[in-house]
């Protein structure tokens, strides 16, 4: 579904070019959930923005569904670190934004928006403005918005990092459920090893500056997985330890 071939990207800075990514090769299959971890400044976000078509690589090829990515595609949705809700729109109208911009029929999507809002537990808050909601609820609304137009690819840039620990776990659980349900191809950038192990089929570990694929770790634990007590505690511990090792050395 997503393929990166020898992708490098450099930003022009004042002191010359800063290389963010170098020679990244990555294949992501349809419906797969891939987590990308690495330390700050390893180009994780750059990788995501390249797939989203928000930026084009300095060299190499990025393909989504076999087509070279040169600009954003409507079937690729993004979820950011900040909920990025429009503060003047109610939860429902925020969720419906993609339908408006892509000029999709409103009645059908209003129904779908309602379903999504109920799925993430925001029923009863449809008419609230974002500032009346907690951070976790805002990010839930943003997730609904990202899923509204049934994107085939979901790109998430540390979507839970601005939330408190409990809300993070809760939302990660919900994301797992939604992914099992809808199966969008998902690329999930995170700092959290736990989140990566909980959610991903494969975890891509990037080395810092310039970002290169250090290792890809397969997580073969059956779903649904959960934090804490869990039948596969040993495997989880093993994976967490391995990823820790990879990140810290």
């Amino acid at each position, binding site marked *: 579904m997503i393929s990166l071939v020898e992708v490098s990207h450099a930003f022009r800075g004042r002191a010359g070019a800063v290389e963010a990514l170098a020679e990244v090769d990555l294949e992501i299959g349809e419906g797969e959930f891939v987590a990308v971890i690495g330390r700050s400044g390893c180009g994780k976000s750059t990788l995501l923005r390249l797939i989203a078509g928000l930026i084009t690589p300095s060299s190499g090829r990025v393909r989504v569904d076999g087509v070279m990515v040169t600009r*954003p595609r409507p079937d690729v949705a*993004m979820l950011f670190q900040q909920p990025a809700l429009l503060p003047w729109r109610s939860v429902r109208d925020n969720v419906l934004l993609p339908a408006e911009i892509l000029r999709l029929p409103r009645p059908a999507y209003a129904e779908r928006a309602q379903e999504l809002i109920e799925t993430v537990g925001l029923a009863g808050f449809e008419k609230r403005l974002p500032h009346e909601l907690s951070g976790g609820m805002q990010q839930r609304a943003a997730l609904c918005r990202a899923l509204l137009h049934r994107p085939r690819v979901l790109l998430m840039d540390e979507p839970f990092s601005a939330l408190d620990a409990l809300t993070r776990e809760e939302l990660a659980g919900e994301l797992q459920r939604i992914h099992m349900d809808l199966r969008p191809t998902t690329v999930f950038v995170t700092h959290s090893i736990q989140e990566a192990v909980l959610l991903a089929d494969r975890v891509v570990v990037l080395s810092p500056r310039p970002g290169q694929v250090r290792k890809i770790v397969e997580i073969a634990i059956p779903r649904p997985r959960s934090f804490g007590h869990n039948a596969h505690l040993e495997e989880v511990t093993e994976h967490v330890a391995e990823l820790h090792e990879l990140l810290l050395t």
Partner: protein
Amino acid sequence: MRTPRVVAPFFGVVGTVAVWWLATALFHIRPLFLPAPPDIVSAFRRQPAYLLHEAWATVTETIIGFGIAAAAGLGVAVVLAASRTVERALLPLFVALNSVPKVSVAPLLVVWLGFGPRPKIFMVVLICFFPVVVATMAGLSSTPAELSDLVRSLSASWWQTYVKVRLPWALPQIFVGLKVAVSLAVVGAVVAEISNPNRGLGAVIVLSGTSFDTPLAFAAIVLLALISVVLFYLVASAERLLLPWARAITG
């Protein structure tokens, strides 16, 4: 028990007036220099119809001028912010024009526009225009990166981005400009009236000076302050009513 929010400001005002009154009485200050509060009230009560009539002239000039400036300022800012080239071409000119002390052109306005209300209205427009332009342009260029990325990732057109994100996002800042403008608007009207005193509270102040009627001048000044405060709160409440979410993003 908590005291209501109006209690402290109320005592602040009452206390200040009391000190002022006491000072005029204790030091036997003549009303010609500094009238006591009751002198001002009686100055008003001697000719309330006249004062209110002149106040109305000032209010209409102020509101018409402010309205024109707000509309023109918004329009110009929207055009300027739409194109980097136009912005670069015209912004320095606006900055230069804005640094001209507007008061200094008051006498010229009489030459250009005559003696009626027009030079006064024009002065209000001159003074209010720039704050609106500058605030609107700042607002239009302050769209947060994540919102731009969001609409870009949805392949939104330029127009969709503008109407659905940039413009609404700018509204709180536009209101900042409008509030600055409305508090300057009365200044503009009075300056124009003083340089060409035929109507309005500015004219009342000039006339009271020639007849050494200081209490009358103070009555006019008090009315001007009231007008200014009321207009400011009208704009501020319009903002609170129209943009209940604005505090969330500016705070």
